[in-house]
């Protein structure tokens, strides 16, 4: 337990610093836009209706979806600016998170400001006109000061929302306190999950209380309270920025998707680069499409993907082929269309496979997917969030005539336990997942070869294609990791009894490889 807490503390300055920086910038933008829109809304009742409805609608978009939507949007925009102005900007991480969160924070600020200003007594407004104030003077000297307590309440709501929602920016590549939660969920590291939640809650509470002081200061016209709140906020900001975002941008950035194996491999690559004296960091928990686009756009320098993923998701191939054919096809396609270099296969494969409880499979004499087909109507199947949308699922269903009673999408960490507990009959697991051995599950054969191969391949960004030092540091990994060894490494992280961090597992893995 101690090691986990220690490693959680170690990354806190970076996570907290980035989280605060992101939240504060988003709030500042939200404040500026929200207040401006509110002033427009006060002057024009028709626009007010429109603005409140529009921002209300944005609020109903789930935070994660809003964040995810900004990534492709910015990527397209970046491509446009490159074409017309020759400038690009990073569509990964900070910018999409910032825009989504800023958009999110507008509503409470807008709504409370409009309510606050409209709530000002008409007699006072008339007096402001009568003494000779212009509309702008009336707004700034009378209406805004009188509405301030209500406006501050809106700012508090926005601040708490933004700080909470910022934890969801991890999958689009922005480091935040959410990294604890996403990593913790994947690696079954509950210390991390709790640590991330508590850190976010404490941050939100502290900021909320500082803003509450400012709010009370406005309500009671107490300068001391306002100053106290302001000093508190400044202290939070300064402290987290001083200890915070540790790096001034490492030279090499290694990517990782959002599951244990990817955390280990990203850590492994990072360690190799460090050992070769190269400055590197890794950003893990990225979405599958996000990470691919980020590599092609040179926003990350290397990551491990799987041939089947490229084959079906990006090349849109429906048929399957042998390992060698798919590998060659993927390598050539990546180079030709994206300029991505495939350094080589790591040696293991992490394919989709249908997995069952051993006792149930033996009792019903199910060894292959073909044997499973007659029972499918009585069985439920669970898969990760993308599996049932993938072409190989459709191919599989068609090839074997599968028609399950129920299909359920699940966080991949939980599905092995679910099938072991009997809550689910079949899952679409991953062949390199250590939990298959842990729960004594069986992988069903695929005699018709309808699932494509998923060899792990190390990919390099276009700008690193000719970087000899970089390549030579990573070449020792090629072809050296067996499926069995990867499964063990995965299990050592995901099984509570072992409690390895991905970094420790990576070190152990390298020791075996180097032998």
């Amino acid at each position: 337990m101690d090691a986990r807490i220690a490693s959680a503390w170690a990354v806190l300055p970076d996570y907290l610093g980035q989280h605060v920086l992101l939240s504060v910038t988003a709030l500042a933008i939200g404040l500026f836009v929200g207040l401006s829109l509110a002033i427009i809304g006060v002057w024009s009742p028709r626009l007010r209706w429109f603005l409140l409805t529009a921002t209300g609608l944005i609020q109903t978009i789930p935070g994660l979806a809003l964040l995810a939507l900004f990534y492709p949007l910015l990527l397209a925009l970046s491509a446009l600016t490159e074409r017309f102005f020759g400038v690009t900007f990073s569509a990964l991480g900070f910018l999409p998170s910032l825009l989504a969160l800023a958009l999110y924070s507008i509503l409470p600020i807008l709504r409370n400001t409009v309510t606050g200003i409209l709530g000002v007594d008409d007699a006072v407004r008339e007096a402001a006109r009568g003494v000779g104030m212009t509309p702008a003077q009336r707004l700034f000297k009378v209406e805004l000061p009188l509405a301030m307590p209500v406006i501050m309440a809106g700012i508090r709501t926005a601040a708490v929302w933004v700080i909470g929602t910022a934890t969801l920016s991890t999958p689009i590549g922005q480091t935040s306190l959410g990294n604890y939660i996403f990593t913790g969920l994947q690696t079954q590291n509950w210390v991390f999950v709790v640590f991330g939640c508590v850190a976010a809650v404490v941050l939100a509470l502290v900021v909320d209380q500082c803003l509450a002081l400012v709010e009370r200061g406005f309500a009671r016209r107490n300068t001391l309270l306002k100053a106290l709140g302001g000093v508190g906020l400044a202290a939070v900001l300064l402290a987290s920025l001083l200890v915070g975002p540790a790096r001034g941008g490492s030279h090499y950035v290694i990517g990782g998707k959002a599951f244990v194996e990817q955390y280990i491999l990203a850590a492994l690559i990072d360690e190799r680069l460090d050992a070769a004296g190269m400055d590197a960091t890794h950003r893990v928990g990225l979405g599958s499409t996000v990470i691919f686009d980020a590599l092609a756009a040179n926003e990350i320098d290397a990551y491990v993907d799987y041939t089947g993923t490229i084959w079906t998701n990006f090349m849109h191939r429906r048929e399957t082929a042998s390992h060698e054919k798919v590998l060659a096809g993927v390598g050539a396609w990546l180079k030709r269309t994206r300029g991505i270099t495939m350094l080589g296969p790591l040696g293991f494969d992490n394919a989709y496979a249908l997995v069952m409880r051993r006792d149930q499979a033996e009792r019903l004499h199910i060894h292959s997917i073909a044997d499973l087909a007659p029972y499918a109507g009585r069985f439920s199947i669970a898969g990760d969030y993308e599996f049932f949308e993938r072409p190989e699922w459709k191919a599989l269903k068609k090839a074997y005539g599968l028609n399950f009673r129920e299909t359920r999408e699940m966080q991949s960490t939980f599905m092995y336990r679910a099938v072991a507990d009997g809550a689910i009959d079949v899952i679409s697991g991953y062949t390199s997942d250590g939990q298959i051995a842990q729960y004594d599950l069986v992988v069903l054969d695929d005699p018709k070869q309808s699932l494509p191969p998923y060899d792990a391949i190390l990919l390099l960004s276009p700008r690193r294609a000719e970087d000899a030092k970089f390549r030579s540091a990573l070449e020792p990994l090629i072809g050296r990791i067996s499926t069995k060894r990867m499964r063990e490494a995965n299990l050592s992280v995901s099984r509570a009894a072992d409690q390895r961090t991905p970094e420790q597992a990576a070190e152990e893995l390298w020791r075996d490889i180097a032998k």
Partner: protein
Amino acid sequence: MPTGDMDTNSATISLRDVNKSFDRGRNFAVRGVSLDIATGEFVAVVGTSGSGKTTLLKTINRLIEPTSGIITVENEDVQALDPFQLRRRIGYVFQGIGLFPHLTVAENIAVTPRLIGWAKGEIDARINELLDLVQLPRETRDRMPSTLSGGQRQRVGVARALAARPHIVLMDEPFGALDPITRDSLAREYRAVHRELGLTTVMITHDMLEAMLLADRIAVMAKGEIVEVGTPHDLLNDPKNDYVRELIDVPRRQASEVERLAGGRP
């Protein structure tokens, strides 16, 4: 350029055939009003609620724009003036006081001088001068309006109206919300200030007695029109209009009633 000095007999405020309709000419809140108010004069406009008297008052400093008619203030057509500058040079005492609740007494008084851009020291001295004038202790400078009594608040209201040394003061039922004793003393004090500073004052009231005791001249309004204008003496002795006679009769009857009660006492 016409100025007040060139022609000392000219009116400080002049209304010529002023009309105001809020519904594009179907109904008129103010109808065909013409009135000249001389420099130094105290004019009360008397009428029931809905008679258009407040609307008429607000056309003078362009809080309300008339539908037609010409209004001049110190010989300048108000339509040719910047409305904000115009309002800053005319003192205004609001119905229901209308102090800014988020500002201290001193800040309330300083509002118009600050808008005009007086120097800080000048404003500071002016605040003390005004507190003395309206007989408020200087300790009230830093108090919030909510901590003051109704009478004290209206004294601040008067001080605020006088802050930028206006020649003209408009008052919209200034003493209406006060108890009779405070009301009487405040009204008399204001009348003294009016004379002392040589102000031109237009006061709206629905109370004929108050108007008669304070004003040099009284304009009686009904249904948007001025039905009669005259000195209190004229109106008391020779009212031309039945409605005016009715209005005059009430305080007169009350006065004699009070007299009789006092006389009949053992």
